[in-house]
C-alpha cells in the first residue's frame, strides 16, 4: 500500500473498514463527523451496516446490541457525545462484549467549543461510566499511529472482551497528513460461542451485567479485575525519545506528545539534555517505566491540553522520586514550543538550586 494524504477522521474510519468493521452506529458531532460521513458511504458500498442514530445514547446501545452478536462494531464521537455514551459503556464493560470507541476530544466543560483538547482524560482513563472498570485507552500522536491503533483496538477488544477507546483530539481528527492504510482484510465468518444469535443446537446464551446478590456481583467484579490485571501486565505501551542520557524528562501524550518532540530537539540544541516519554496507552499507564526514569532524571515536565489530568497519574508513578512540573493549556489552546522550552528552563534552574 502506498502513502496517501489522509484526514484523520477519514483515516481511522477507513482503517476500521479494512480491519473488518461489520457495523457502525454513530451520531454527528464536530470535530469527528467526517468519520460518520465516510462510513455512511463506504459501509453501504460494501453491504455492511451503517446507521445514524437518534442520539449518542441510542448509538452506543446499538453498538452494544451488535457487539452481543459477536460482530466487529465501533462508534466515534467527541466530548459531549462521549458523556452521553458512558451509560452504555458501563453496561458493555459489565457484560464483557468487545467494543471500540473513538473520542476526538474537544474543549469543555459543557458545550465548550470544537477546538482540540485532552480534557476527557479522567473520564476515559479513570472509569467506564458507573461501577469499577477501566477501558484500554490508546493515545495516537499522528495519523499513521491512529490508523495502526484501529487494528490494535479491535484485536485487544476481542482478546479481552473489553472496551477499547482511542483517545484523539480535534486536531488529529481534522488535520491531513501522509499515511499508509492497511490492506483490506476479509470479514470474519464465524461468531464467538458466547454470541446471542439464536439458540440453535445449543443451550441459550444470556448476556447481562445483572447480578442481584452481593456475593455474586463481588465475584463477577473480581473476575473483571483479574482481567484488568492481565491487561495491566501485558498491554502497557509507550514510546521513549532520547531518554538514554536525559537528565530532564517530558511526559505528554497524543498531539502534545508530538509537540514535545520539537521541544526536545530545540532544548537539546540549547544544551539541555531532555528526553520524552509518550504514553501510547493511557490505561494501562506506563507507571513502572516512568518510576525508573524518575530515578534517573533531575526533574519531569508534564504537559497536557487540560488542567492536569494525566498529571495525577504521573505523580503517582514518580512517587516523589523527583520534582514534577506542569504546563497545560485549556479550552482548545495548544501548548507551544517556546512556552514549553521556557518551562523546561525554569525546571532546570529549580532543580539545579
Amino acid at each position, binding site marked *: 500500500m502506498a502513502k496517501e494524504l489522509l484526514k484523520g477522521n477519514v483515516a481511522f474510519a477507513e482503517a476500521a473498514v479494512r480491519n473488518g468493521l*461489520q*457495523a457502525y*452506529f454513530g451520531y454527528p458531532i464536530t470535530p469527528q463527523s467526517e468519520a460518520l460521513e465516510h462510513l455512511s458511504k463506504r459501509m453501504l458500498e460494501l453491504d455492511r*451496516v451503517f*446507521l445514524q*442514530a*437518534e*442520539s449518542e*445514547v*441510542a*448509538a452506543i*446501545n*446499538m*453498538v*452494544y*446490541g*451488535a*457487539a*452481543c*452478536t459477536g*460482530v466487529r*462494531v465501533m462508534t466515534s464521537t467527541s466530548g459531549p457525545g462521549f458523556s452521553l455514551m458512558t*451509560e*452504555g459503556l458501563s*453496561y458493555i464493560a459489565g*457484560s464483557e462484549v468487545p467494543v471500540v470507541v473513538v473520542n476526538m476530544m474537544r474543549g469543555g466543560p459543557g458545550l465548550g467549543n470544537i477546538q482540540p483538547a485532552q480534557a476527557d482524560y479522567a473520564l476515559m482513563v479513570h472509569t467506564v461510566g458507573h461501577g469499577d472498570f477501566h477501558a484500554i485507552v490508546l493515545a495516537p500522536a499522528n495519523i499513521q499511529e491512529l490508523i495502526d491503533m484501529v487494528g490494535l483496538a479491535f484485536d485487544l477488544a476481542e482478546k479481552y472482551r473489553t472496551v477499547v477507546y482511542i483517545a484523539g483530539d480535534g486536531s488529529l481528527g481534522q488535520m491531513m497528513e501522509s499515511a499508509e492504510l492497511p490492506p483490506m482484510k476479509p470479514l470474519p465468518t464465524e461468531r464467538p460461542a458466547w454470541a*446471542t*444469535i*439464536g*439458540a*440453535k*443446537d445449543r443451550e*441459550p*446464551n*444470556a*448476556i*447481562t*451485567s*445483572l447480578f*442481584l446478590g452481593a456475593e455474586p456481583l463481588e465475584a463477577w467484579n473480581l473476575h473483571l479485575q483479574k482481567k484488568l490485571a492481565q491487561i495491566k501486565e501485558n498491554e502497557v505501551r509507550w514510546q521513549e525519545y532520547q531518554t538514554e542520557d536525559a537528565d530532564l524528562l517530558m511526559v505528554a501524550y497524543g498531539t502534545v506528545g508530538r509537540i514535545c518532540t520539537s521541544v526536545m530537539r530545540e532544548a537539546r540544541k540549547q544544551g539541555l539534555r531532555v528526553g520524552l516519554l509518550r504514553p501510547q496507552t493511557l490505561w494501562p499507564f506506563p507507571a513502572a517505566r516512568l518510576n525508573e526514569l524518575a530515578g534517573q532524571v533531575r526533574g519531569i515536565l508534564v504537559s497536557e491540553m487540560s488542567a492536569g489530568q494525566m498529571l495525577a497519574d504521573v505523580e503517582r508513578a514518580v512517587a516523589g522520586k523527583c520534582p514534577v512540573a506542569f504546563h497545560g493549556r485549556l479550552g482548545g489552546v495548544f501548548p507551544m514550543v517556546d512556552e514549553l522550552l521556557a518551562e523546561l528552563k525554569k525546571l532546570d534552574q529549580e532543580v539545579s538550586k
Partner: protein
Amino acid sequence: MSVTVNIPADMEVVYEYPRSMNKVYTHYCPGCPHGILHRLIAEVIDELGIQDRCIGVAPVGCSVLIYKYFNVDFVEAAHGRAPAMATGIKRTNPDKIVFTYQGDGDMAAIGTAEAIHAANRGERLTTVFVNNAIYGMTGGQMAPTTLPGMVTTSTPMGRDVRLAGYPVPMSEILAQTKGAVYITRQMALDLPSIVKTKKAIKRAFMAQMADLGYSSVEVLSTCNTNWNMSPWDSMVWAKEHMVPTFPLGDFKMTDEVRALKVR
C-alpha cells in the same frame, strides 16, 4: 424445580409446556400478569417455529430477569434502551427474530426517544409493551401512564396533572410513525382478552417475519402489590379505570399486516 411427566404411548399430547419457556419458578408476585404474558410469547415462538433464531431484549423493571424464564437467547438492556439494542442486533442479523419486552417507564418515559425512532425507522422488531400504570420494581412510584388522581408513592395526593402531566398515550404516538406497521393495545385481564392478546402478539411477530416493519403490542396489565389490591380486584379496577384512559384496539394496521393469516 423441574417437572417431568411420562406420557403413555397410547395417549395423544393435547397440552404441553411451551418449549421456549424454562421449567422454573418465576420471581413475580402472586397475581402478577407477567407470567401470563411470558407464556403467551413462548407459545407464539413455539407455534412460529422460531425458538432457535429468536433473540429477546430484557428490560429494567420487574421483568429484568425474563431471560431466566425463556429458552431463547437474551440480552439485558439498560432502562429504556431496548429498542436501540434490538436495532443493533437486528441490523447485524437480519435473518433473526428480535423482540423487546418493555414496561411503561421503559417505553414511555426514559426510553421514549429510542422507542419512537426505532418505530419511525421501521425496524423489523416486535415490542411487547406492558402497561400497569405504575413503577413496580422500585416500589410503586408514578409511571408515565399513571392515571390522573391515582395515588402512588411519588404522588401521595394522587397524580396532579398540573404538576406531573397526563398519562402518555404511547401506542397512539407510535401509530403516527410511518415505519410502524402494527400498533395495537390489548389487555390481559380475563380469558377472552388474554386469547386476543396472544393473537396480537402472534401477528406482531409475523409482521417482523414478513419483513414489514415495526410492531408493538401494548398490554394493559395490573400490579396488585403496588396498587394495594387483591389480584381479582386489580383486574376489575384495570378494566374499569385504565380502559377509559387507554382505549383498546388497533391504532395502526397496514394492509399487509391485516392480510397475515394469524391462527
